[in-house]
Each structure stands twice: as structure tokens, then as C-alpha cells.
């Protein structure tokens, strides 16, 4: 019975702590990305530039501290409870346990949360009454010109980032650069989930068989791309195509948008 009571107490305490914790992380700042034309990377007769209307986007990727609040409020997204269909075994593997990032990991509280699946990212954004950005939205936003930049071009900067191995400790959000929309870290920190990451990017139309186009993608895909010199974009599209919804990867996080 003693145990019973102490557990009850612990639970009440836990609820209180949880309530307090909520007030610690302030509401995430969002900025407006002005509408504009998104030029699909793979060009074909039907795959022409589309106009993306203005939307609001999280200023930075979602952090570990922010994600912890979500996990606390949504038990099914705890590491030990999550369904394998929706997140693989790497889900939140860098955290100490279900409900603690870990004191020794204090350095990453304000770093982007990674090792989260597409389903987890979707659920988080929905919980915030937001959505994951579409590929078009993300690419439009990420194309924004950097403010105060020491690199020759954004592509140079991205390629330089690609050549570096992932850092052992992921830096904080806002540690790379800010772009014209006021967004931080669109490149240079992590890869980010998009709503339609599983888009059929390489197909010129709906008549072709899936397998053939994948071969094209790997072999001779250079024919119909928007900018043949944009090697960075190649990598992004290739990366997205290689993902599955339950994958959790140590360099892949997300941010949300509001339409």
C-alpha cells in the first residue's frame, strides 16, 4: 500500500512538473514566406513551375526541448511505446529515456530534434495545429537569399556542408545563417522532413512504370533537371526518394508550417 501511495504521489508530482515545463519553452516564432514560383527540379511537359501561395513557417527546426513537451503530452510517441510501423528502432535514440533528454545531453536541448520519423513529425505539427511543409513550400523557403554570408553562393555553402561529416554534437538552432524571410538553418544543420517526401520526382508522366523511372533516376537523370549545376538539389531529391515514413535518422529533423 505504501508503494501504491508513493506511486500516486509520484504521478501527481509528474503532472505538476509537466505543467510547469510547458511554460518554460516559449511559443515558437513563425515567419512569413511570400508566395512565389517553385520550379520543380525535374522538368517535363506537365511538371512545370507552380505558384506557391504565401505561408507561415517555423523560424527554426523543432528542438529537442520542444519535442519533449509533445512526447510528454502524447504517451504513444514515447520511445518505449511508439509503434514500429510509425517509427523504427532509432526513434529518439539520442535521448536518455522516454521522458528525459538527459542532463549530460543538456547541450542539445536547444538543438534540432532528430531521429524522428515522418509520422512523428506529422503528429507533432498536427498537435501544434500546423502541418509539415510540402516539397514546394520547403524548397521555396530554402531558396531564400542568406543575410550576411561569407560564401560565394548558397550552393557553395550547401556543398561545403555536405562534404563535412555530421558533427558528434548537433549545434543549436540559429547557429548557421538566416535568410531573407527570417528563417534560420534551412541548410547547414540538418535535413528536414517534408509532407510529400515520397513524391514521384523522376517520372515525366503517369504512363511509365515505376521501376523504369528509378533506373533513370540513378543513371541518366540529368536530362530534364531545372539546373544541371545544382548538385545540392540532386542530393536533396535523391535523399528524399530514399526515405521511408518510419525511418529515424540522426541528421533528419523537421519544422512546421501554417497555411
Amino acid at each position, binding site marked *: 500500500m505504501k508503494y501504491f501511495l508513493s506511486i500516486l504521489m509520484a504521478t501527481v508530482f509528474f503532472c505538476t512538473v*509537466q505543467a510547469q515545463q510547458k511554460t518554460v519553452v516559449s511559443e515558437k516564432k513563425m515567419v512569413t514566406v511570400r508566395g512565389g514560383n517553385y520550379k520543380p527540379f525535374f522538368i517535363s511537359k506537365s511538371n512545370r513551375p507552380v505558384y506557391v501561395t504565401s505561408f507561415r513557417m517555423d523560424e527554426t527546426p523543432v528542438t529537442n526541448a520542444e519535442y519533449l513537451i509533445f512526447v510528454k503530452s502524447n504517451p504513444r510517441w514515447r520511445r518505449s511505446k511508439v*509503434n514500429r510501423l510509425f517509427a523504427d528502432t532509432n526513434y529518439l535514440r539520442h535521448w536518455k529515456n522516454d521522458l528525459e533528454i538527459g542532463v549530460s545531453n543538456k547541450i542539445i536541448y536547444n538543438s534540432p530534434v532528430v531521429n524522428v520519423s515522418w*509520422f512523428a513529425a506529422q503528429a507533432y505539427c498536427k498537435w501544434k495545429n500546423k502541418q509539415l511543409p510540402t516539397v514546394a513550400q520547403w524548397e521555396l523557403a530554402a531558396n531564400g537569399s542568406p543575410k550576411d554570408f561569407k560564401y560565394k553562393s548558397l550552393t557553395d555553402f550547401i556543398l561545403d556542408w555536405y562534404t563535412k561529416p555530421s558533427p558528434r554534437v548537433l549545434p543549436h538552432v540559429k547557429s548557421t545563417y538566416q535568410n531573407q524571410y527570417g528563417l534560420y538553418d534551412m541548410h547547414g544543420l540538418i535535413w528536414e522532413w517534408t*509532407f*510529400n517526401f*515520397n513524391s514521384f*520526382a523522376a517520372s515525366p508522366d*503517369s504512363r511509365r512504370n*515505376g521501376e523504369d523511372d528509378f533506373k533513370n533516376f540513378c543513371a541518366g537523370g540529368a536530362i530534364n533537371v531545372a539546373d544541371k549545376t545544382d548538385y545540392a538539389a540532386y542530393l536533396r531529391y535523391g535523399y528524399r526518394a530514399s526515405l521511408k515514413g518510419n525511418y529515424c535518422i540522426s541528421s533528419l529533423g523537421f519544422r512546421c508550417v501554417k497555411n
Partner: protein
Amino acid sequence: MKIVIFVFFSIILFGCSDMSSKSAFVGEVARSTSMPVGTVSSESIYQLADTFQTQDNKKITLSYFMGKPTVVGMIFTHCPYACPRLTADIKDIEEKMNSKKGVNYLLVSFDSERDFPEQLKKFANSYGLNQNWTLLHGDENAVRTLSVLLNVQFQKDATGNFSHSNIISVLDKDGVLVFQKEGIDADPAETIGTLKQLLAKR
């Protein structure tokens, strides 16, 4: 006693943490079905809580298909070439299965903006799809989530049509994905073999 404490603890913990939860996205069986929560296998695609509409305007969740093996294809009805062929491939499987009942045949549309029940009904009639077939309309989120679960890639283009992979999936009676065949005009032998095995197990 241990069990009682454990149960009590989980109830309180769950209850307290869940108060602020706004999300009923995945990992939870929709409450609209009569099935008790917990009967769905953890690998089941039927955990998807989203609602779809059938060609007969019935609102359902995917757990509706529970109890029989299900063959699934994703299509859109304005599709000029691939989707009619994928549909024909599944019809061919149905004929070769040589059984009127026992298997669900399911087509889910990519086209949330055009393929409403009425249009799906037209498509079903023009392809002579019988009562073993269900055609589903879902919102953009539901369709995308299902496509991710079924590893089907698709993208809407500027003309409103879709580029997509052509995959026939087989789910067991609990909604667990057990077999997939990619490509049009693919040899149906393995798909049929899988279905027969599933039917034998029941």
C-alpha cells in the same frame, strides 16, 4: 497486487498526460468502429484513424476491411493509362482467385479533389467492378499517410494529374502488409500464392 498497482499507475499516468493531447493521428483505432481498442495488430495499417468515403458514400476507416485478406492499389480515375491497367491487373488476380468472396479488392484514389464517391462509382461501373471491390476517397492527409505506409510514391503535377508508382499490395486479415508487387503487367503468381496462403490460414 503488483498488477493492480501497475494498472492503476498506467491509468493515471496515461490519463494525466493525455489531457492536453489534441492528436488522434495514428497509433489509435478510430472510435467510430465497434472493435475494441487493442485488437489491431501493432503492425496493422488499419491503425490509421483517418476516415475515407466509399463509392457508395459510406464513411469508413480502414479497419472496415478487417477479417479478410485485402488487395490494395492506389490510382486516380482521370489517369489515362497506368491506372486502368493496374485495375485490370487486380481484376485478373480476382478472376484467377476464382472465389467470389473471401478477399477484399480495394482501390484508393490519389485525387482528393476530383475522385469523390460519385466519380468512383462511375469508374467502378465502367470497369465492371463487383461488390468485392471498394473504391475510396480520402482527404489529402489521409491519402498521403496511406501512401507512405504502402511505400507508394506519388506527386500531383501542374495539370492536376498524378505521377505515381504502380504497386499492388496484399494485406492480411488484420491489415498487416505481407506482400507487394511493383509494376504494371507484373506476373500475378506470387500475389495469388500469397492470397491463397492467407485464405488457408483462416
